[in-house]
């Protein structure tokens, strides 16, 4: 049976690749996709949880939560806040924000939306385990939620903050009674929101189906049904796009993006914001990484420009700082590719013969394996002995959260334009600080900046902070993630750089 089974597997492997080829070449676009106005979105991974307060990644978890729930403000693709459940807001004084709420909104279970619902949701966010995901309280210093009347609410912070609207855009509101009275796993699997869509079904690791919310307060979305499908293989996602069985393909790498182009579909390039890097874990298995000289050496050892040209089709640029343009400190000097200098720095730090180093990656970002292998090859040229290791996504997230990666790891952070938020990621003990970097001087500057309302003064503090962290190099700086989507030509929608996909704004022709 040993012989039989394994040869059958081999046959199946051959067969399936043959089928994939044939499908790509021959299948016509099925017409049902247009008739029923269904939009199918193919992603590499599945949604993790539908508890709106456990939102921890932009896509697909974030995209689905954005479709089912509403927040007080919506974040436009360029980072500006727009009204959502709040119709307007104003600052009463340095620490008080007043929000006027939308009237006549009901959740899909019939509960009404009002100021009390906001208060209940915000209180829940601040309790474990949600407080590890939701950063509204941590990042804004929110200390009081005062209900003024049914549709007016005041948010009071400990100190002045510039980040209130940013974090409110990710603070989603669910039906308060349902949420507080149901078991946590029920809340995570059967969401009740007020957004444009509601959940119809969810088969884990296969597909999640949304159907239109008839009672939605805003403009009704064009597509009645949205299906988020899990298609782990990049080439399979593109095959489905060309065959018409998927309308949007997410997580495409530039070097095979050309395969998205067909009679009915094309590749869409969006200028990326996500700062890709090899995070350097200061608390990992390799103590050498605690030395800033070693971390600078790593940065000098890798030829980022060549990797961008060859592997990313020249479709992106190196990151200029840990803060995205236009808020980056323009005086920062890039770590030029200079293997000699890298060797010299290693020798200076006491590692003339290098050291063993584990490079870890997951399926979180397409192309992780290639990037890790290329970086490994560059590092071995300056004497470091790298090992490349694939880590299962769930385990990878856990390692990031616990700062327990082995050495360096392929990661991307903060696809947004908001210097204060971008800087806070690398402060001591921050939930997203997976490199274990901790510099009190930096922390003090970041905190002071986030409480400074004067624009020029704040910018000065942020520039100082950027300079400190840049030269301390807690990351091996790479590039801005080139965001490539595959999109069916009959769908009109401006895809976002931060990877949130908003099916309710898509127009199907």
């Amino acid at each position, binding site marked *: 049976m*040993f012989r039989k089974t394994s040869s059958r597997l081999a046959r199946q492997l051959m067969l399936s690749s043959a089928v994939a080829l044939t499908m790509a070449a021959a299948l016509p676009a099925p017409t049902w996709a247009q008739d029923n106005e269904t939009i199918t979105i193919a992603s590499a991974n599945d949604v993790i949880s539908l508890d709106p307060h456990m939102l921890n990644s932009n896509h697909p978890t974030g995209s689905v939560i954005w479709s089912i729930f509403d927040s007080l403000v919506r974040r436009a693709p360029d980072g500006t806040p727009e009204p959502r459940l709040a119709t307007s807001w104003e600052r009463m004084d340095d620490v008080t924000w007043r929000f006027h709420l939308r009237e006549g909104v009901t959740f899909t279970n019939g509960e009404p939306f009002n100021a009390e619902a906001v208060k209940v949701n915000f209180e829940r966010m601040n309790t474990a385990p949600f407080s590890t995901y939701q950063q509204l309280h941590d990042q804004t210093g929110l200390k009081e939620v005062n209900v003024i009347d049914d549709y007016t609410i005041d948010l009071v912070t400990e100190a002045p903050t510039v980040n209130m609207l940013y974090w409110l855009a990710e603070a989603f509101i669910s039906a308060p009674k349902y949420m507080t009275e149901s078991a946590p796993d029920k809340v995570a699997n059967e969401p009740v929101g007020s957004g444009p869509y509601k959940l119809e079904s969810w088969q884990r690791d296969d597909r999640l189906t949304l159907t239109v919310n008839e009672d939605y307060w805003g403009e009704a979305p064009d597509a009645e049904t949205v299906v988020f499908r899990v298609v782990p293989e990049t080439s399979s996602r593109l095959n489905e796009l060309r065959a018409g069985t998927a309308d949007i393909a997410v997580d495409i790498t530039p070097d095979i993006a050309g395969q998205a182009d067909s009679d009915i579909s094309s590749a869409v390039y969006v200028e990326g914001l996500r700062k890709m890097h090899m995070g350097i874990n200061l608390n990992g298995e390799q103590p050498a990484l605690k030395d800033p000289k070693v971390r600078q050496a790593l940065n000098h050892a890798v030829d980022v420009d060549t990797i961008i040209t060859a592997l990313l089709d020249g479709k992106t640029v190196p990151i200029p700082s840990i803060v995205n343009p236009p808020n980056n400190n323009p005086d920062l000097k890039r770590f030029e590719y200079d293997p000699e200098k890298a060797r010299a720095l290693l020798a200076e730090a006491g590692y003339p013969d290098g050291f063993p180093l584990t490079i870890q990656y997951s399926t979180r970002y397409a192309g992780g394996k290639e990037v890790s292998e290329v970086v490994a090859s560059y590092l071995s040229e300056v004497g470091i002995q790298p090992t490349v290791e694939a880590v299962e996504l769930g385990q990878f997230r856990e390692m990031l959260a616990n700062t327990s990666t082995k050495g360096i790891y392929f990661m991307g952070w903060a696809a947004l334009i908001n210097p204060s938020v971008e800087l806070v990621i690398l402060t001591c003990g921050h939930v997203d600080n997976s490199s274990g970097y901790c510099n009190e001087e930096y922390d003090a500057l970041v905190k002071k900046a986030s409480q400074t309302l004067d624009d020029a003064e704040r910018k000065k503090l942020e520039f100082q902070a950027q300079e400190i962290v840049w030269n301390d190099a807690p990351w091996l700086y790479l590039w801005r993630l080139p965001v490539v989507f595959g999109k069916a030509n009959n769908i009109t929608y401006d895809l976002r750089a931060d990877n949130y996909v908003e099916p309710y704004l898509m127009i199907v022709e």
Partner: protein
Amino acid sequence: MSPRFRLRPGRRDTLGLIGATILLLAAGCALLAPWIAPHDPTAVSLLARMKPPMWIDGGSLAHPLGTDNLGRDILSRVIWGSRISLAVGVAAVIVGASIGSTIGIVAGYFGGWIDNILSVVINAQLSFPFILLAIFLLATFGGGFWPVVFVLALGAWVNYARVVRGMVMSVKNQDYVHAAISVGVPTARILRTTVLPNTLSPIVVVASFSMAQAILAEAALSFLGVGVDGSNPSWGVMLNDGRAYLQTAWWLTAMPGLAIALTVLGGNLCGDWLQDRFNPRIGN
């Protein structure tokens, strides 16, 4: 005898010789990899990525079989990949044959309740879908060289056990075995000197087949990402890496695929040939 029948052994021999040659070539590649591979199999050269084989426009003699998605030389990777494939194949055969033959001899020679119990174990193992078991074990306990060998041996030992058991059951009733028993030769010595030598030829035949299957299974497991360490060039890993580029750069998958196919063919031809030589009646 008709001319047809006279021709047959000749053709069999030729095929067997071809099979043996292929296996020897593969073994040569594995042993001499550091000296015959033109490039370091892990050396990345980003500016020379996706170069086609030399006989296609854009290819060059520097990379006879082209380069992969990171500009690594495919010929060198195929040559180095033979090390893992053959090492896994040989090791799995040795481990599987040792376990399987021992169990087969014990079951066949002693018979009775021992045979009953071992037969149940053999049948239970046979009824289990092997690849599922392999993926389960490797995904749970992690991949690597020895885990893969162990898992492949776990799938192969029953083949040896069944064949050897049958062989031993017929041998133990031969007069010379009865004679040995009646003059008081110790059981261990009987097994070693009279029973074991008689089972060697079927073991060799099964081994050559199962080595080919082990190589194929190793490639499948590496392809599925649960095989030998992914950073080493193994044929299955190369197949997996190249899959995304199937439509734009077929040589990434075709070259390791060809290497797997040829080696497995070599093993099977050898197996057929040995079967004919040792046991002409079964051969047909």
